[in-house]
């Protein structure tokens, strides 16, 4: 959203002819994180899935890291930017798939807003990730049921989606935790 202006700031002569947004370092950082999340989304779309809707949700690793480092508002930005930009990339903006992603992301973010207040010493990124992925399928299944397939038969798929959510939520949480472990080392290393 804001990254388009970053590479043009050097060319001072052209600045008057362009519309420049006043962007902060934080904006750039969010844009970068969203871009990484977007990359992971593209990556995982190349992975074949046995069942439509069952996918690892690798981009949520980024959401988790942003949540832990920069707080919930930043996580909302990165997550929603990723959903909107991803839908533009895959050409399903405002199509059913977009609303499925959006409802899942919004539910996840809502749950993360609550889960991040759990005691840090006991509950880490894995808990956040698992809860968020469960919220994700709840949001998606709600949209599917209310809008796309209003039939109770989709309930038969819930255990499959829930299992996928638990497995991928755990894996994503562990990956996020590992990344943040390394972050901590680097930060403490640079401070000392």
């Amino acid at each position, binding site marked *: 959203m804001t990254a388009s202006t970053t590479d043009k700031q050097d060319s001072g002569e052209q600045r008057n002819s362009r519309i420049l947004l006043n962007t902060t370092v934080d904006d750039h950082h969010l844009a970068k994180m969203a871009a990484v999340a977007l990359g992971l989304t593209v990556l995982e779309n190349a992975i074949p899935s046995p069942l439509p809707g069952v996918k690892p949700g690798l981009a949520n690793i980024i959401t988790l890291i942003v949540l832990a480092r920069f707080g919930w508002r930043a996580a909302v930005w990165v997550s929603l930017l990723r959903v909107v930009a991803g839908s533009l990339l895959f050409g399903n903006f405002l199509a059913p798939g977009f609303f499925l992603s959006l409802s899942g992301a919004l539910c996840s973010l809502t749950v993360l807003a609550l889960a991040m207040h759990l005691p840090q010493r006991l*509950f880490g*990124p*894995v*808990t956040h990730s698992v809860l968020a992925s469960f919220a994700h399928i709840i949001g998606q299944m709600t949209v599917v049921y209310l809008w796309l397939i209003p039939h109770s038969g989709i*309930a038969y798929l819930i255990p499959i989606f829930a*299992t996928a959510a638990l497995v991928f*939520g755990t894996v994503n949480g562990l990956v996020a935790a590992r990344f943040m472990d390394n972050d901590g080392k680097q930060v403490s290393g640079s401070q000392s």
Partner: protein
Amino acid sequence: MNSHEPPAAFLRDLRPGDWLTLLAGGLCIILLSNQVWNGGLADTAVIRSGGKIFSAVPLSRDQHIGVPGPLGTSIITIEKGKARISSDPSPRQYCVRQGWLERSGEIAICLPNEVSVELTGGQKKYDSLNY
């Protein structure tokens, strides 16, 4: 991520509450699967003859029930929580060939003899009933 880490290093990233979450998630899935995949099992067979309810019998007791119709007697067999029409005087035997019914909502109809068996009671109100 250096190569000196022990293979189970990821366990370090799991805090006590995380184990709790995983456990709760696993339990949720088990409960959900039970609820969703076994919840459709029926517990009652409603037998109709000539459009009227002839009897409603629990599937828990194995038995054979003879139901009279215009062509003769249809025999309904109930066994191990399943029900089927094992014998029927209808010419084409569709309801007999349908075989065992076990899920709520399944129905076998012998149209010529005006006999039907429908399974009901997927959403159980009680865990068990004693007679």
